[in-house]
């Protein structure tokens, strides 16, 4: 589904990703772990096409397409979802309006008819219920006045509504209490644990992986994957820290 080859990227002329390669197949869950400043968020932003994150080398193929040739919204329409480490507030725009416009914009790019208000609401309600979020929250402006945990939960509701093929989830577990962590973990499994979907979890901690079992675990340090392994690698990392393993 996703094939990253020797990806190099700079931010403000500073090289951050320095030849990163990674392959993800449909049906798989991968976890990327690594120390602060390793370039994990940069990887997510670069794949999603954030302006300012400049690709200076390498290639990324997503579902047979040259991902790097697409604009950010085209990547979204192609099925790429980025769960933000710091979800953004948009005053005056309700979550429902935001998501309906987003979903219909994606559908338009894919050549599908727009969803009616009623059909959209049905989907939105189901996803909110599944994440234990009140509909009233969805009527409020995007992330405005939401707690850290609520923002992360909201990312999952958005993921459920947009129903992507590949989810890059950037520290979706940080700032969650233990109950919220379970809800979010179950949400990821429910929405994304499917034969035709894949997940890349960016996390610091084993605890999310207790709920979402990864098939592969990678260690990212200084802009490269320095080690890959099975689920056990995450436990090892938790015990030993990154320094030993990356060495």
């Amino acid at each position, binding site marked *: 589904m996703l094939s990253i080859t020797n990806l190099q990227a700079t931010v403000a002329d500073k090289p951050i990703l320095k030849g990163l390669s990674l392959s993800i197949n449909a049906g798989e869950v991968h976890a990327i772990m690594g120390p602060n400043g390793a370039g994990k968020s940069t990887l997510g932003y670069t794949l*999603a*096409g*954030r*302006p*300012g994150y400049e690709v200076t080398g390498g290639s990324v193929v997503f579902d047979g397409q040259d991902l790097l040739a697409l*604009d*950010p*919204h085209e*990547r*979204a*329409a192609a099925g790429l*979802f*980025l769960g*933000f480490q710091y*979800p*953004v*507030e*948009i*005053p*005056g*725009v309700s979550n429902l*309006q*935001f*998501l309906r*416009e*987003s*979903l219909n*914009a*994606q559908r338009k*790019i894919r050549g599908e008819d727009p969803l009616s208000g009623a059909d959209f609401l049905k989907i939105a309600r189901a996803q909110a219920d599944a994440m234990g979020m009140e509909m009233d929250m969805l009527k409020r*402006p995007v992330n405005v006045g939401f707690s850290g945990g609520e923002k992360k939960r909201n990312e999952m509701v*958005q993921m459920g509504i*947009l129903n992507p093929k590949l989810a890059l989830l950037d520290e979706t577990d940080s700032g969650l209490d233990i109950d919220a962590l379970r809800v979010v973990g179950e949400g990821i499994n429910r929405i994304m644990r499917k034969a035709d979907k894949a997940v890349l979890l960016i996390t610091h901690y084993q605890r999310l992986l207790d709920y979402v079992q990864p098939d592969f675990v990678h260690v990212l340090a200084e802009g490269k994957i320095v080690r890959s392994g099975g689920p056990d690698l995450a436990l090892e990392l938790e015990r030993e820290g990154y320094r030993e393993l990356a060495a």
Partner: protein
Amino acid sequence: MTDTPIKDAAAHAAAAKVADYEHGWSADIEQEFAPKGLNEDTVRFISAKKNEPEWMLDWRLKAFRLWQTLEAPDWAKLNVPPIDYQDAYYYAAPKAKKKLESLDEVDPEILKVYEKLGIPIEEQKVLAGVEGARKVAVDAVFDSVSVATTFRDELKKAGVIFLSISEAIREYPDLVKKWLGKVVPVRDNYFAALNCAVFSDGTFVYIPEGVRCPMELSTYFRINAENTGQFERTLIVADKGSYVSYLEGCTAPMRDENQLHAAVVELVALDDAEIKYSTVQNWYPGDAEGRGGIYNFVTKRALCQGARSKVSWTQVETGSAITWKYPSCVLNGDDSVGEFYSVAVTNNFQQADTGTKMIHNGKRTRSTIVSKGISAGHSNGTYRGLVRVAPQAEGVRNFTQCDSLLLGNQCGAHTVPYIEVKNPSAQIEHEATTSKISDDQLFYAMQRGLGQEEAVALIVNGFAKEVLQQLPMEFAVEAQKLLGISLEGSVG
């Protein structure tokens, strides 16, 4: 009462000469022009064209003589190129074929133009006679002359008078005489005086005591003739305990020529009356290099004369090369309420100096001002607002919120509040913010699937929401689209 039209051979010759002007975007409708230039004969020509009574001509002539002694205001933060008042036409009318009963009978060319402008679906439904469609009465002002009025009968049943101002001058001279120029005096300012002298047409509304107007009243203004200044005149009188919501929308086609627009709108609210006046202004703003565009010098004022009366101005200003406009409320009646909700967008080289005046003369009068300025490109937007509390006005309250949003770093946003309080019991609150549209917000929205311009439109609409939600439904939808369209190409 009726004067005979002046037969001015020179005028007709001039009109014939300009009749073969390049059409460009203009709909193909024959025009009848007053000769170019401005003098007492122009004023007489217009008055005669409209079959006005003597008193009206006298009023115009007095205004014209006064105007000649006035100077154009220069205190606004605007860079206004010199305007040659002698190099413009002051009257253009579609050739009257016959009196029309409804919009269906309007020249299809005109309707086509309206369609291009995206007149709200609801309105089209009403025009097509769809059952259950929300009623909106349209008094179409096309190039200065009211060519059709709909729903007149239903309004008549309610006792509501909704006419072109020329008709009102002939049919309800006493009502017009009583209020015309009483809210905005002839000598109020340069542009108002000019309007008094040469106003071509406009709208008159009277809502009788205790009547809630059964539908929203709507007028579409549209400039269609090259070099034709637009001098609309609107007078709305809401008698005791009445209510009316009035929608004014305007757009103009592609033009390379600067056009002057100097409208006057006067509102009068008596005891317990309420007027809601909504505007979407989308005159041609000029091109991306700042060529062309409408000069929009408007005087809008409401007299909250009665106790507990209320006037609410809502405006969405996206058009015009230059906007000079301060819809205001004179709160004379005790416990009267004034509101001003404004979104002003400037892009490219547009300039807008707009705001409001809330004049608190009555006791316990209250006012709310919410201004949202959005600047992009090389444009400049200024909020200019006055809150004045008279010595006798006990217990006044005002709340002002002024927010500016910048797109890019070559535009400007300015806030100029004037507060004059002569009564210590007044509670005045003023809040102001300036922010930039953030890359985080744009990318977040784009990651969810929105194109860059859709993302900008969404964020800007969110910023302007408090104002947009004051608009009647069908207008709000149109206005939202307009904000997006106005800012196309402003980011990235």
